[in-house]
Each structure stands twice: as C-alpha cells, then as structure tokens.
C-alpha cells in the first residue's frame, strides 16, 4: 500500500479518482446531506474540471526529472513488457470502447429538459407597491414587533399559514405540502438553514407580497407558482405570518446591520 502511495503514477491516479468522486458526488449529493446548499455539477463542467486536474498532474509530474521518469515507468512497462501482454491487450480494447462510449454520450439525442439556472434569493428592489401604496424596503422592520401582543400575532400568523400556505409549503414548513409534487420548482423549505436565517423580514415580506409574478425579469425562468399575496392577504396578516415562520422554525431573521456587511447570496 505504502509503495503505491509514494509512487508518482499511483499518486496521479488517486488524485484523478478522488477529484472525480468529489465533483460528481460530494458536491451534488453529500453536501446537501450535511446541510450545505449545493446542486449536482453538469457533466460538461465536470469534464472541464477533470481536464484541468489532468493537466495539473502532468505539469507537477514533469517539473522534476526523477519524478517524471518514475511517473512514466509503469505506463512504459505496460506498453513494452512481455509479462504484461494480457493487461496490454485489455487496455487496447477497453480504452477505445471507453472513448467510443463517451462520444456516443455526446452525440446521442437528448431528452433532457433545457438546463435552467435559478438564483434562489434574487436581489430585492428598494421599494415595492402594496395595492398601490409605496413601501420602502430598505431598513424596513416588521411593525408587529412594536405593537400588540406577540402571542396574538403568532396565532394570526399560524391561522394564515395553515389556511393558505400548507398545501405547498407543508405542515412541517419543509416545502413538502400535499401539492408540492405538482410544482416545479418545488416550494421553498423554511426549515433549511439556507432560507429564513439568511434573509431579513423585509425580504420575506417582498417575496410574499409579490410572489412568482413579482420576481425580477433578469434570470428567468422563475416559473414560481407562489401567489402574489397582496391580492389575498392584508399587510398585517403577512407580517404575522412572517413572525410565525421564524417562531415555528426557531430561526432568527437577518438584521439590517448584518445586511450591510454581507448582502444577499
């Protein structure tokens, strides 16, 4: 084992395998499991990454004469040594087949949907209109923190949420309501650390008030089924629902001070 680990050829091979595993599976499938927002890498991008890795390995290996020699040795041996005839034969068939298969993957007719890129949290406007009334979003705080009883606001928010939001966003606030399978993109998961804790209450207010139709034109298609709730709910009902979302998930909203430092993703 140690012999392999210290041999340049096998070091190169290990780097290639590890990089492929990281690009193909770790980024797309392992990171989301441990709670980091991520998505599978498109195969064309993986190909580019792998070429970069390959060039890097060759550059590193050829930078030192002795290392380059011992890196080439197993390859050369396989091409000429008498006792490697079988391995040579297998590679002479397997490599062309692999290349042929890759070529086929590239030219075969594709029935995949066109790739769409979505910014999950697009930049909000500075102000919005609520049924004609202009509201400044910058620096806007949830007015319900300052008035009335928080318990009553939460009760209102819960009633609004269960009546209106549950079919898509779910009783558990996890974006898995009973209609969620019918929507593409899927409804937002409020229990994800990538959503509510990253946003100010005013941002959530904007997304609720304007919904899918109010998303900025750049970066379409949005295809969001989220209603523009200004047509259905009152402002206070929306603010109460926002209080409920944070209370029920246990997250705290981003504040305007933090906002100034970081900005949206």
């Amino acid at each position, binding site marked *: 084992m140690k012999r392999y680990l210290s041999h340049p050829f096998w070091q190169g091979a290990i780097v290639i395998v590890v990089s492929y595993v990281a690009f193909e599976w770790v980024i797309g499938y392992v990171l989301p499991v441990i709670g980091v927002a991520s998505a599978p890498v498109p195969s064309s991008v993986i190909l580019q990454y792998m070429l970069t890795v390959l060039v890097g390995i060759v550059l590193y290996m050829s930078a030192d004469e002795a290392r380059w020699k011992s890196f080439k040795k197993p390859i050369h041996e396989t091409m000429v040594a008498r006792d490697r005839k079988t391995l040579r034969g297998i590679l002479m068939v397997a490599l062309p087949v692999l290349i042929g298969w890759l070529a086929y993957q590239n030219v075969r007719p594709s029935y995949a949907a066109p790739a769409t890129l979505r910014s999950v949290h697009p930049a909000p406007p500075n102000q919005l209109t609520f049924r004609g009334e202009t509201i400044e979003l910058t620096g806007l705080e949830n007015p319900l923190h300052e008035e009335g009883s928080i318990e009553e606001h939460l009760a209102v928010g819960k009633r609004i949420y269960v009546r209106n939001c549950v079919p898509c966003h779910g009783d558990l606030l*996890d974006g898995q309501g009973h209609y969620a*399978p019918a*929507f593409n993109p899927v409804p937002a998961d409020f229990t994800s650390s990538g959503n509510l804790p990253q946003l100010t209450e005013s941002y959530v207010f904007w997304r609720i008030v304007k919904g899918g139709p109010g998303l900025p034109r750049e970066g379409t298609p949005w295809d969001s089924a989220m209603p523009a709730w200004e047509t259905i709910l009152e402002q206070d009902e929306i603010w109460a629902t926002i209080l409920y979302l944070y209370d029920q998930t246990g997250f705290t909203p981003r504040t305007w001070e933090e906002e100034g430092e970081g900005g949206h993703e």
Partner: protein
Amino acid sequence: MRVLRRGTLGTLGTLALGGFAILALSAAPPLSAQEDAAAAGKVVYDRWCAECHGETGQGDGSAAASMLPRPRDFTQALYQIRTTGSGQLPTDADIRFAIENGLPGTTMPGWPNLTDGEIDDLIVYLKSFSRFFGQGPAPEPLDFGSDPGGGPAAIEAGAAAYLTMLCEECHGLSGRGDGTSAPTLEDWRGLPIRAADLTEAWVLNGGSSVEDMHTRMLTGLDGTPMPSAIDAMNSGVVSPDEVWQLAHYLASLGPREMPPLREVIRVGRAEAGLPADGEEEAWAGVEAFYFPMSGQVVQLPRNFAPAVDGLWVQGLHDGSDIALRVQWNDPSNSPDPNWDEWQNKITAALDLDGAEPIALDSAGAPTARPPDAVLLQFPFEPPEGTDRPYFLMGDAREPVYLWTWDSETGVGAGRGRGLDSVEPLGEDPVTGEATWEEGRWTLYLRRSIEVESDGLDFAEGAPMPIAFQAWDGSSAEVGKRSSVSTWYYILLEPPASSTVVVTPLLAMLLTGAFGLVLVRRAQDRRRDG
C-alpha cells in the same frame, strides 16, 4: 376614599384567595404520569395539530372547511386506519402509525419532526378528547391470518372475489371509484366522500402494500361507507384466503408509488402511421408520462380540494402531424344528473373561497351542470432561451396557445392571457375527441406540427414548453377552481441520424490506431536500444 378603601379591600381579598390557592395547589398530590403526558401532548397538539383538528379536537380547525375529507374529529373516536375490528377503538400503535405515516391522499402529512416521546404524549392527549377511551379492556388487533401468496392465479381469484364482495358497486369495475353507488357516498358527518381509486394506490389513506389492503378490508374504515369483510367471511361468502387474494388483486391494479416525474414528454416517430383515435392498440406500446396536478391555489377563488390529481400523457408524430393521448381518472362523466346530489353536497361542504355556488332550483336540482374539461397550454411565440409565459394561462404581456377540450363542446384552440381571459381562435387546426369509460377519460388530440397561420411550431428535437389544467364538472369545478400543473416540456424525436453511429465508431477507431502506433513505437525503440 370609600371607593379606594373598598378597592383596597378587594385587592387584599384577591391576594389572600390567590395565596390560599397556591397553598392548596402545592399541597395537592403531584399530577399522575398520565396527566403529565396529556399536558405535554397538549403542547405538541396546540403547536402542530390544532389549526386543522381544532382546539377541542372536533376536527373543526380554522383551515378545516377547505378540506375534503375533513380532519379527524377526535371526540368521536372514529378512526379509519386501525388493526382492530369494525366499530372498535384503535390501538395506540394504530394512532402512532397514522401520525408517523400520515394519511396519503388527504391533507394529513406524516410527522417525522416529532420524537417518539412526543408522539406518545400526543396519543395520550388525543385519546383524552373522547370518553370512549379508558373504558373497558384495551383494544386488541385482529388476527389477520397469513398470506397464502400472490401470483397470477391468486390475482384471478381475487378478481372474482372483487365481484362476489360487491366491491364494484362503489369502486367500479376497473377500480377507479366510479361504481354506481359512488355519487351517493357520505362519511359519518354526511359529507361527500370518494370511493377510493384503487388504481392510484399511492393515495390510499391506509397504505399501498398487499398487507395494508388486506388489513383495511378486515377492519373496514370506520366513519366511511367502507365495511369490514369479516361478516362476509363469517357467513361463508368468501374464505379468508380469498380476501388475501383480493388484496393481491387490488395491489395489481396499478403502481404502488406515484410514478416518478419526468420533465420531458418524449414524442416518438410512428413508423406505421399515427393512430386515428385514442382507442387504437398502438398506444399500448407508447411510453406514458404522469404529471401530478395541484389545486389552483394561486388566484381567488382557489380550489383546495381538486378532483383531478394527475394526468397521463403519450405522444406520437410522423414528421407532419402530432397526436397526443391524455388520460385521467374521473369517476363522473359530467354532465350527468346521477351526480347532481354529489355536486350539491360538494358545493355545500367546501369553502368555495368566494366563488359563486351553483344555485339550486325549487326541486333542489342544480341549475347548472358544468362539463369536464382539460386544456393544454404552449407558449404562443416560439420560446426564446428558457423564458416561458406565466404558467396560469399566460398574462397580458405574454399570451399562451391553448388546446381546449370540454365534454360539451369538444376540442378547440384559444389564446390565453390569464386565467379569466381566453379568446377562441376561429380557424383552429386542432382536432380530436374524448371517450369516457369506467371512470377514465381518454382524450385524443391531433394537429399539424407546423401551421402557417399561428405561432405554434413543434420543431423536431427542440423542447417545447407544455402545461396542463383540468376540471371535474360534477365536483362543481368551474373557472379558476381547477387543477393545474406548472411547465414541462414536450419533445418530438428527430429522424434517426447517422452521426449517432458514425461518431463513436470513428472515435474508437482513432483511439485504437493511436494506441497501436504508440505501443509499436515503444517496443521498437526498446528492441533497438
């Protein structure tokens, strides 16, 4: 002064009483473990359950009126999903099963966020809503016997038992919930209830396995018209083995899980010509794509209890025409006076979210019987990039091209600029027809791939956006109260191209030759050296 003194005295009195109360409480024995659990269960209940099931457990929470079936009324202790005999209370494990797994096909989800301990406490609290629990011995599960096994023979015997047990009276000959009694079914509250569509096992309340089906048949679903099979077994109408065979038959009626969603409808080339209608055998060999549908819950008035929950779509083309077959389950061939009572009950039971209910005449019959309908929508202009119109029939900025069908006027085409803005297109090039059989609509649509007069052009090999809507007239679904889908794609298979074969072969040959040359040179050099 006097007033003040009386006030002071009053305050003192209150304080004294309060003090006595505190003394009395602290002197009282500690709450029993059962009461502790119920108190802890109430916290969970109030946080997660009360908004639907109601603070007093009567299934009358603030959101209940938009749901059919309604949330469970715990005060009645009528539980559908049990392992105990008909009319008996559920075991704690039964209640736990429903909480953990939810009731598929209803608005009740599973609750993986609750811990085992929280569910234990919750069960104690749920039972405290009804005085029936705690009286007499704890309920015991039935003896379900053992499964004699499945296979084609068992399924055939099960199909016979399906008729012997009169299942088809409610569930229909094909199991789609379209039996002759289906329009009359009510739950214990007198609310309309669907006979389960057994071909969509993933929406069965009590699970979709053979064991689940067998259990539901033996226990019956209390509070619904679904009886227990035990009486039929005891009187010798069916044997225990036949009920197991029936369970195997039911499980064979359709997929257990909802079919996986695929975003692109693949429309293959019909080598032997396009089918002339939706009934032709040729369709059996064509790949079918399933699209789940949601209620239209975006614009008022919304539909929180849609009747059509999914569509199957198939397509073929021959280079000049495209033919689509759309199938969906609907137990009623609307308009059908047999479903008048159903339509009235749905109208009365559901919160229509501001929609005008269909009025009744003096004899109690509805003044309108809406048709069943489906529409397919496409972008009106060829899509640029990935931009698509608004999924609810477009908007003023970007209209959509509609293929419409309803059971009264048939197939047509239209231009949509929003849910309530549809303008029929005079010379519509879309033709087709629909047939209804045993609880299923089959809609056949056909059109030229390219039509000069309009903007819709199905270029082969280019994905075309497509979205759907559906209505069940007998469930009083009209206008915005529909089922909807978001955008998917439809793609016409291009003619077979030689590059698919030539390019990989060429790549293989070149690689092989290059390898050979390399090896040969290396060996020559070694021999020379």
